[in-house]
């Protein structure tokens, strides 16, 4: 197995104007591991994930994807933003799933999944569709291949979005609050797909409010608050033996809400 972490984050800082939203985050995600990032709204967890994909460029620190620096080029101690082409190349091993699915409404479910296969991988229509159908079936929406997103439920849309990311054969999957926009009864079907992925050994970083999922599926849980990592560890430690006051308070609030 590869010794190097798939994703390595060192001393990450990010500002939005005067707001200091990430204050020196370190994170290493090894191959086939599932890391869940939890924390209250505004704690910076989504910004961390977006910075790890360079959708929000970070200001200080470094993000390495399979050992390659993401987003910047460093020469003589100075660093400049990398070209789009290099950024695309480094993040080509990342698959990302968003809170609001971000499907393209003018394309069918299958069209969404095959688009990048055709345009980026330059596969022929037949080969792209073969993979597309396979991926949609894998996430349980094989029968919806020719429906437009507007005809799908939120859960089906999110599973289609997962299939779209998986079709590119990513080495790591990022999930940015993948179930937060879903009706409660649809959350389970998406979490199940994610759990199956984890079971197959997919490397995953999941920003989530689903404590049950984090407790059962994660290898490591990272608790963030105020732009910092407050606590991290195996789920048992985080959920059963929180050390910091802030994590205890966060878990108490969550428990009182879910009763």
């Amino acid at each position: 197995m590869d010794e190097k972490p798939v994703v390595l984050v060192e001393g990450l800082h990010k500002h939005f104007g005067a707001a200091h939203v990430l204050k020196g985050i370190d994170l290493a995600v090894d191959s086939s591991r599932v890391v869940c990032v939890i924390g209250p709204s505004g704690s910076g967890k989504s910004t961390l994930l977006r910075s790890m994909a360079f959708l929000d460029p970070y200001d200080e620190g470094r993000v390495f994807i399979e050992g390659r620096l993401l987003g910047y080029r460093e020469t003589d101690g100075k660093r400049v933003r990398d070209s789009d082409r290099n950024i695309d190349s480094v993040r080509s091993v990342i698959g990302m799933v968003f809170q609001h699915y971000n499907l393209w409404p003018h394309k069918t479910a299958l069209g969404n999944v095959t688009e990048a296969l055709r345009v980026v991988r330059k596969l022929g229509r037949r080969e792209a569709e073969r993979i597309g159908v396979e991926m949609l079936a894998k996430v349980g929406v094989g029968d919806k291949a020719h429906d437009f997103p507007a005809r799908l439920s939120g859960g089906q849309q999110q599973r289609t979005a997962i299939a779209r990311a998986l079709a590119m054969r990513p080495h790591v999957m990022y999930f940015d609050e993948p179930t937060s926009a879903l009706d409660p009864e649809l959350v389970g079907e998406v979490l199940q797909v994610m759990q199956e992925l984890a079971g197959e050994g997919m490397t995953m970083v999941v920003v989530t409010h689903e404590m049950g999922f984090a407790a059962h599926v994660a290898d490591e849980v990272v608790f963030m608050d105020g732009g910092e990592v407050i606590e991290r560890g195996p789920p048992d430690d985080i959920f059963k033996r929180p050390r910091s006051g802030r994590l205890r308070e966060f878990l108490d609030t969550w428990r009182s809400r879910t009763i």
Partner: protein
Amino acid sequence: MSFDIDIVVRYGPLLLSGLWTTVYICALASILAVAAGLAAALLYGLPLRFAKLLCRVYIEVMRGTPILILLFILYYGGPSIGLTLEAETVGILGLGFYGGGYFAEIFRAGFQSIPPGQIEAARMLGIPRRMIVARIQIPQMLTLIIPPSTNQVIILTKESALLSIITVAELTKNTTQMVNETFAVVEPYVAVALLYWLIIEGIALAGGALERRFGHAS
């Protein structure tokens, strides 16, 4: 008062030649306007302050200047800076770049209507920017921009009547010639109004057809 259809028949060839000139000038000007507008809207979307400023200036100048003044500057002012153009060329360029200012705003609104998340999803899949524009943004913009674009082509076509002032032998110019030669007023102007109405109905029908063609299931 009677309507003398004979005059219209007699001047039919002149009117039809004017009609043809109006149609092809407006067609070329519309293509130029769409291209200039799209280019301006795309430039505006780049993260470059200079590009944004350039587009802003272009749009404001086109919107802030009466088309007739623009045509005068090009036609009469052109030669003083070594730019001697045929009247028809001035008509195509003038109407085209003028219309481009309006098309730029239509396209800009279209681009802004696409949720940024869709673009982010495409970027994460490695889809190059130009393909994102061509395959994700423009196809979705079409349903939104076809009605105002149809409108804009109609306005452009009606404004082309002003080209008669810079001697382009289009529909209005030829009608004026007909009035001068026959001393009739009603027949020529009613005939020309009908011809303009025909062109504009044609544009409206084409716009409607495009709208139906590109309407999708979202």
